[in-house]
C-alpha cells in the first residue's frame, strides 16, 4: 500500500513538472486529466483510510469522474472548439519553468520539514507534493499568457489544496455533503470559465490575456 501511494505521489510530481514543461495545450490538458485521476486516487491508498465507508468510496468515484474526466473533458472541448493556436506561450520559458518547479519541490520539502507537525512518514511526501502542486499551479497562473492555461493553473492549484487537505485533516472527509459542495463549486467554476473563454474567443479571436489588459487606471 505504501508503495502505491508513494508511487502515486511521485506520479503527481511528475505531472506537475510535465505541465510546467509542456508547450502544447492539448498535452497540457491530457496531463491535467492524468493528474486529476492520480490525485483522486491518492486518499484511497493512504494508510489510515483503511476502514473506508461505503459513502467515501462512492464519493471517491464521483470525484474521479469529475476531476479525471468531466473537467479535463470540458477543457478539452473548449480547446477544440475555440481553435486556438496550440502553443502555450509562456511568459517565463519552459526550461526556466521546469527549473522553477524543481525549486518549488525544494522549498516544499523545506516547508514540510519546518512545519513541525508529526506527520506520518508517507504524509511528508504527500505534503511536499501538495505544496509543490499548489505553488506550481500559482506559477502557471502567473506565467502563462493564454487564458486557458490559467484555468489549468487554477485547476492544479485546487488539486494542491485538495492534497493538503487530505494530508492535514482527518475530519474533512467525513462530511461528504460538504466535500461534494466544494467539488461542485469547482466544476461549475470551470464551466463558467469555459463559457467566458468561449465568449472571449468569439469577441477577441484569441484567448491571449494580453488582450485582457484594457481595463486599468
Amino acid at each position, binding site marked *: 500500500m505504501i508503495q502505491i501511494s508513494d508511487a502515486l505521489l511521485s506520479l503527481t510530481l511528475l505531472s506537475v513538472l510535465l505541465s510546467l514543461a509542456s508547450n502544447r495545450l492539448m498535452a497540457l490538458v491530457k496531463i491535467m486529466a492524468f493528474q486529476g485521476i492520480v490525485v483522486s486516487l491518492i486518499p484511497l491508498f493512504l494508510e489510515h483510510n483503511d476502514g473506508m465507508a461505503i459513502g467515501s468510496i462512492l464519493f471517491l468515484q464521483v470525484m474521479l469522474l469529475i476531476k479525471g474526466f468531466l473537467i479535463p473533458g470540458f477543457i478539452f472541448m473548449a480547446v477544440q472548439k475555440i481553435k486556438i493556436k496550440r502553443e502555450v506561450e509562456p*511568459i517565463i520559458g519552459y526550461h526556466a519553468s521546469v527549473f522553477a518547479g524543481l525549486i518549488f519541490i525544494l522549498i516544499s520539502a523545506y516547508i514540510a520539514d519546518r512545519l513541525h507537525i508529526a506527520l506520518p512518514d508517507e504524509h511528508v511526501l504527500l505534503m511536499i507534493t501538495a505544496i509543490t502542486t499548489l505553488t506550481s499551479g*500559482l506559477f502557471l*497562473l*502567473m*506565467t502563462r499568457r493564454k487564458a486557458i492555461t*490559467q484555468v489549468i493553473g487554477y485547476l492544479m492549484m485546487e488539486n494542491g489544496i485538495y492534497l493538503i487537505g487530505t494530508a492535514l485533516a482527518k475530519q474533512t472527509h467525513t462530511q461528504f455533503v460538504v466535500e461534494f459542495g466544494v467539488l461542485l463549486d469547482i466544476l461549475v467554476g470551470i464551466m463558467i470559465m469555459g463559457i467566458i473563454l468561449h465568449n472571449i474567443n468569439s469577441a477577441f479571436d484569441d484567448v491571449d*490575456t494580453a488582450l*485582457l*489588459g*484594457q*481595463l*486599468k*487606471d
Partner: protein
Amino acid sequence: MNTLLLSLAVIFAGGILALLFVRQFTLMKLIAIATMSAGCLWGLSLTLSGLFAPTAGMEISVEWLHLFTLAFKVDSLALFFLLPVFIISPLVLFYSFQYLGNKNKAVRSAVSYFLFAILVCSMALVVLASNIITFALAWEIMSLSSFFLVVYDYEVQSNRRAGYLYFIFAQGGAMFLFAAFALVYSHTGLMDFAAFSQIAEPVKLLVFILAFIGFGSKAGLFPLHIWLPQAHPAAPSHISAIMSGVMIKMGIYGIFRVYLLLEAPTPLIGRMVLIAGMITGVLGVVYALANQDIKKLLAYSSVENIGIILIGLGIGMVGVSEQNQAMAFFGFAGALMHVFNHSIFKSLLFLGAGAVLHQAKTKDIDQLGGLIKRMPTTGKTFLVGSVAISGLPPFSGFIGEFLIYYGAFQGVSEHRIPFVLTVLAILSLAVIGGLATACFTKVFGLAFLGEPRTRQAAQATEAGAGMGLVMVVMAVACLVIGVLPEPFIRLAFAGLKDLSLINTFDFSPFFVIIRQVSQTATLFIALFLGIGLLRKFLYLKKEIGSSGTWGCGFTQPTVRMQYTGTSYGDEMVDFFRPYVPIKRIYTGITAIFPGRTTWDIQVGDLAETYYQQWLAKPLLRLLERLHWIQHGNIQLYIAYIILALIVLLFLL
C-alpha cells in the same frame, strides 16, 4: 431654551415652505423670507432677554441612536454668538428678495432658501451644542449647506473650483475637529463638553492645536484661508454676506469655546493664538490691498478681521495665563465686540458689492468708477461700511478695536514674552489699521469715485429700493454703535458673564471711559457739522464753477489714465514682498518708436502657491505614478495576492 429651538423650527419651516411654493416665484420668496425673518426675530428677542437674564445655563438633551445624547446648553457666550446669526440673517434675506430676481432660476432660488434656512439653524445649533457629537453634527450640516449655497451659480467654472476648494477645506477642517474631539473622548470616555477640562495638560495642548486648525480652516486663519477669497466671490452676495459676516465667526466661536472648555491650559495656547492672529491680520489686509476683485478683496478683508478678532482672543488668553484680569476681560470683550461689528459692516459691504455686481456686471474695481453718482444709496452706505471696517471713529469698527487696544495696553506692564507679544500685537493692530484705511480708500475711491472706466460702469443704476433699504439700516447701525457704544458693549460684556475665568472682574469703571468715547464721537460730529455749516456759510452767494480735473499740463486726459487699484496698492504690497508673491509682466519697449506694450502686476497667494508647489503637485504626481498598481495585467494581480500572503506569513 425650548422656545429658542422652536424659533429655529420656524426658520426651518420657512425653508420647507420655500420648496413647497416653488411654482409661485414671488410668493415663494415672500413666504420664505417672512417666515424665516419671523423666526430670526423671535430668536433674537429670546437671545437678548437671555443675555440680560440673571440665570443662564439651561440645558436640553435628547437621546440619539441609543448611544449619544444630543445636548444643547445656553450660556452667555452662546447667546452672544447667536446675535449676529439672528440679526444678519433677516437683513440679507430682505436683500435677497430683489437680488434673486431671475424667475428662470425659481427652483434654484427655492432650494437656496431651503439651504439658507438649514444654514441658519445649523449655525445656531453649533453655538448651542454642548457635547462632541451634537457639535460635530451641526458643524457638518453647516458646512454642507453652505457649500451648496456657494455653488449657486455653478455654471461658472471658477465658482465650481471655489466650491471644490471650500468643500475640501470644510471637510479637512472637520476631520481635524473630529480628531481633537476623539482625543478628548479617548482620555475621558465622555462626550460631554464638560469633560474637556479633565484631560492632562500636554494632551490639552494637542487638543487645542487640532481644534485650532479645524476651526481655523473655517474661520479663515492664515494659511488655511485660501478658500475664502475663492468662495466669497463665487457665492451670491447675500450668501457671501452671511458666510463672511456670520459663518466664519463660528470658527472663532469654536476656538473660544474649546479654549474655555480646556480650563486654564498652558500659556502656550494664548501665545499661539495671538501670533496666529497677528500673521492672519497683517497678511490678510496686505492681500486685500493687492487684489482688485471687489469681493475677493472683501474676503481677504474678512481674513484680516478674523486676525483682529484672534488678536483680541489672544490678548485675553495671555491675560488669563498671566492672571491679568483686566487684560483678559478687555481682550475677550474686544474680540466679541469685533465679531458683532464685523458681522454688520462686512455684510453691508458684501451687499454693496452685490449691488455693484448686479448693476455693473463686474467685480473688478479697475473696471468700475464713479458709481456714487449713479448709485447714491449704495455708494453712501458703502462709504460708511468702508470707514467702519477701517476701524475709524465715530463708526462701529473703532469700538471693538478700542477694547482690544485697551486690553492689550493692560498687558504692556507684563514682562518678557507676554510683554513682547502684546507690544507686537499693538503694533500689528496699528499697521492693520493703517493698511485697512489704504485698502478701503482704494475700493471706495476707485469703484465709486472718479470717472467710470468702462461702459458697463457708466450705465449702472441704483439697484432696488429693498436692497438699498437693508444697506441703509446696516449703515445706520454702524454709526449708532460707533456713537452710542454703551449698550452694545454691555452686550459684549453680558456675553462674557458666564465665563468663570474672568467673571469676577469689575468692569463698571470702564463705562466712564466708554461714555467719554461716546461724547468724543458726539463732539467730533458736532465739530464736523459746525465746520460744515461754516463752509456752507462761506460758499453763500459764491460763484461755483465746474470744469474738468486739472490734468497737470496734460490736455487730453482720458478715463483710462486714472490711477488703478493695482498701482495704488503696489508700493505697500511690495513692502511685504517676500510674503506676497508678486509677478510683474512687462513686455518692454522694443522699437525706437514704441508701439503697444503691457505692464501687468499679478499677485498670487503665498499659501496657495505653497500648497500648489509643495503639497498638491507632488502629491498628484505621486498618485499618478502609483496608478501603475492597477496595471490591467491579470498575472500581476495574482502576484499581488501571493505577495500579500507571503508578507503576512512572515508576520507569524
